């Protein structure tokens, strides 16, 4: 009798997993959003400001100006943190879009893409770990932790773009019907 509760618990977890997976299967990303136009518009250069948004250089310059007050720097950094967070959101969205394109190209490819699939998966893990660490750094920024490293995330996005680029092939029979 004392096993009824654990069994019910395991069943509840299983049910939650299956419901979650069915929901995910039913709401997988829409391939119609993965367009060549998006890829043409995609540019890594738009993330260049990210690398210096939270840098100390501007603050030092500000501090050397006459009439400087600590509140000005505080307000400036609060605004910049908001802008940085917005950049980070865009970065994640672009990364996810590249992943979707990569997955589509892998699934519909006429050649075996096992290595690319592993590589994409590793990149994804590394990137999400980097994003989590960046959010943590951003949260700790007002407490004096100023060592944010946006460069690593932009580099991960570049690597993903390169990976997807490597999936493109000049041959005639690139994709297959299903």
């Amino acid at each position, binding site marked *: 009798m004392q096993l009824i509760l654990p069994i019910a618990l395991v069943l509840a977890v299983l049910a939650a997993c299956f419901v979650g997976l069915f929901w995910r299967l039913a709401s997988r*990303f829409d391939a119609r959003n993965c367009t*060549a136009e998006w890829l*043409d518009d995609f540019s890594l250069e738009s993330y260049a400001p990210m690398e210096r948004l939270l840098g100390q250089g501007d603050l030092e310059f500000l501090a050397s100006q006459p009439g400087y007050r600590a509140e000005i720097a505080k307000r400036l950094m609060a605004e910049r943190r908001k802008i940085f967070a917005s950049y980070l959101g865009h970065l994640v969205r672009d990364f996810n879009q590249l992943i979707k*394109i990569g997955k*589509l190209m*892998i*699934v*519909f490819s006429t050649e075996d893409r096992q290595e690319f699939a592993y590589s994409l998966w590793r990149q994804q893990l590394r990137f999400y770990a980097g994003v989590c660490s960046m959010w943590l750094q951003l949260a700790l920024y007002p407490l004096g932790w100023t060592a944010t490293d946006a460069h690593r995330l932009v580099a991960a996005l570049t690597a993903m773009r390169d990976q997807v680029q490597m999936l*493109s092939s000049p041959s005639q029979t690139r994709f297959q019907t*299903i």
Partner: protein
Amino acid sequence: MRQLPIEQQILLVAQIAALVALSARMSWDGLNKIYVYFFGYLVVELLQLLVPVFVPLDSRLYRDAYVVTQALVICFSTLVVLELYSIVLRGLPGIGNLSRRYIKATLVLAVLISLIPMSLEQTPNTVTGYLFIFQRPIMTSLLVFILLIMAFLAYYPVPLGRNVLVYLSGYVVYFVTNATTIFIRNLGHYWSRPISDVQMLVYFTCLAFWLFALSRSGETKRMVVGHQWDPSDEGRLLAQLEAINASLLRSGKK
């Protein structure tokens, strides 16, 4: 002579009717040629359900017939799940090797997970007891296998026929019920009647669901990536992929 309780007699008749109707529907729609093992499974299940109609429940012949047909049902259940995934992943060379390796790893993991609760189960002293001891890990490993393969399908935009989703939903409910009820039995709780009632009712519900939800058009209707699929989408997606490819090649040359 021992007889089935009245509610089980009703459910038995309902199950037989549903099995006959589902087999006929599958043959009519030509689905029996696509899902060969599933069709075989339905036939074996039908044979098993017909046994108590002709053979007395307390006879040795009934026990032997049950054990033999149940062993066949277990074999077919395994083949049905493997068949389903070979159909889903067929004709996708891009992820052919990847999915094969994933399935191998998944099978090992599923078997290992299913063996965990074995230490809690009682040592059987009857032939049917031994059968249940074997059946529970097989049903559990099939369930875990389905769960892990669904995770793969949720990750990659593999095109799924509507029928595949219908099969999956039915199997999940059926295997969860089966694995749980057999596990409770193997723990030594012999609430035989309510357990059998639940099992029969759930199985009938699954059969009815398959009967009404499976169709010939379910093979062509595909849930590819986030939306219902119609034939013109196929050409559009390929054109889209070609355009993406061209765009990547252009930016690669820059």
